[in-house]
């Protein structure tokens, strides 16, 4: 047994590393290369033409791309913040319940079981201007006489998509924050109350710091697949009307598969990858910081 003997954790991690290298890393290197070529699906020979940063330069001056980029960041900001707030509210509502907490918890997880594509379709159905539940309800209640063109007008479509996105992902926050609330020791809260804290102060300085790591776990999980929004948008509006709800991901798909401009699409895809990585690393660091803070205080 002389010579090179790899350590046990290395051997155990090897299969994971091999699979991820083969299916994620190598293809990504390939796509990085092709983002420097004018590669088109219809012209295979263009794969070997090297054009340097021309794709990236033309992206920089492409207003459609920057609109999509800005819209994606806006959607993520709105959605993640509202999901966090609503999830927190929902978790606290359910935690307060004295009876039937198990049933409430199960109901709360309901949206998690819907695949994004189903969420998209379901809200497309509900926001349909002619037969949708939302318009039918608004008209029956006499709030509006006109059919509101939810998915046809740009801003309304953006709102509809945000609603779908928030509906589908609030559950993740709620369930994890609830886990935090339930795991929390009760003494600090009682101590705070005895010391004369207002409910808000108790929440802000006792409950919230404890629940924070759980919220960041939810954020990290969410940021691992922020691109779920692609499925929702693809189904609900497909980037329409006239590109008003185009997100980074739908734009990449359109450029690659409808226009066949793979090189350009790969260059765009790199922006979306960097965006996702930025989100994940940010929340991962927040998570680590929140953990150490609790470790120090408790």
């Amino acid at each position: 047994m002389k010579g090179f003997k790899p350590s046990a954790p290395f051997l155990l991690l090897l299969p994971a590393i091999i699979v991820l290298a083969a299916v994620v890393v190598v293809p990504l290197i390939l796509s990085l290369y092709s983002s420097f070529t004018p590669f088109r699906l219809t012209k295979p020979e263009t794969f070997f033409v090297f054009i340097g940063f021309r794709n990236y330069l033309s992206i920089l001056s492409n207003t459609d791309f920057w609109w999509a980029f800005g819209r994606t960041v806006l959607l993520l900001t709105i959605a993640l913040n509202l999901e966090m707030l609503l999830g927190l509210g929902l978790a606290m509502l359910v935690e307060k319940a004295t009876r039937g907490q198990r049933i409430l918890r199960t109901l709360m997880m309901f949206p998690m079981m819907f695949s994004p594509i189903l969420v998209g379709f379901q809200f497309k159905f509900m926001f349909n201007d002619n037969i949708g539940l939302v318009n039918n309800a608004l008209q029956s209640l006499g709030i509006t006489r006109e059919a509101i063109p939810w998915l046809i007008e740009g801003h309304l479509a953006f709102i509809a998509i945000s609603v779908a996105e928030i509906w589908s992902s609030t559950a993740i926050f709620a369930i994890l924050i609830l886990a935090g609330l339930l795991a929390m020791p009760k003494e600090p809260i009682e101590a705070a109350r005895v010391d004369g804290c207002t409910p808000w102060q108790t929440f802000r300085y006792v409950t919230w710091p404890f629940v924070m790591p759980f919220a960041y776990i939810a954020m990290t999980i969410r940021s691992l697949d922020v691109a779920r929004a692609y499925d929702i948008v693809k189904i609900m509006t497909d980037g329409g009307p006239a590109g008003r709800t185009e997100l980074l991901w739908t734009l990449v798909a359109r450029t690659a598969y409808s226009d066949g401009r793979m090189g350009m699409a790969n260059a765009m895809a790199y922006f979306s990858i960097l965006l996702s990585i930025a989100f994940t690393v940010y929340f991962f660091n927040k998570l680590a910081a929140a953990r150490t803070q609790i470790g120090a205080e408790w």
Partner: protein
Amino acid sequence: MDENSSARLKRRLLDIVYRIGLFLAMLTICLPGLWIVLSSLRPTVEIMAKPPVWIPQEVSFDAYVAMFSGIGKGGIPVIEYFRNSLIISVTSTVIAVAIGMAGGYAFARYRFRGKSGVFLGLMLTRTVPGIALSLPLFFLYVRLGVIDTHFGLILAYIALNVPFTIWLIDGFFRQVPKDLAEAAQIDGCTRWQAFWQVEFPLAGPGIASAAIFAFLTCWNEFALASQLTRSVSAKTLPVGLLDYTAEFTIDWRGMCALAVVMIIPALTLTFIVQKHLVGGLTSGAVKG
């Protein structure tokens, strides 16, 4: 006395407000799903009716019958899609969990250099948006001739699931006290035996939840499947859902029915795992 009763009134009012709030929240959560189920059971005329028909006048299973009666009779090849979905999801789940168990065990039981770096690195591979990953995979798969096959999608889904199964299973192994396996080893087990006879059974329920979670990810995945499959031979249910949309019209009732077919397995499985899932994700929350 007066102060007392006003305090009691205030408390009762707060309680009522709380109940209404809870009710509204739960209604918002459940209504969209219930609406889909309801729509799949009513005739198309009612879905299209103006003014809207709120309570179904008649319940019919026509949409489900049509869906399963095959192409040409208003149906889509839903049985083939179902089979594809099942084969692809199950195979990739089994392999991803096996890989995840090895990786998770390594993270939970060993100390090694660059541990958190490796962990973050594995997670980062998961952040690559499906659609961005589909571009090079599409190109590679066409070259290798595995486009539109079960194998291609299974491979992609394994990679998709491995980071997350590692995270979950790592959490479950951490909940199993180290001393147990050490005691078994002192009693004469090898590390391998100690793992299978002590640690694995204890972490078992957690690993099962990780498996179900991986299964659901595959079952629901759309971005990759929509680009890497084309025909009945490999298309999965989420992609099949699009069969109901034509250029300008959508068969709402048919789509609702297929949605119900898709959601039932997901619903059952999520219900089974909910408790363990939360435990696994948060096990490292307070003590890293």
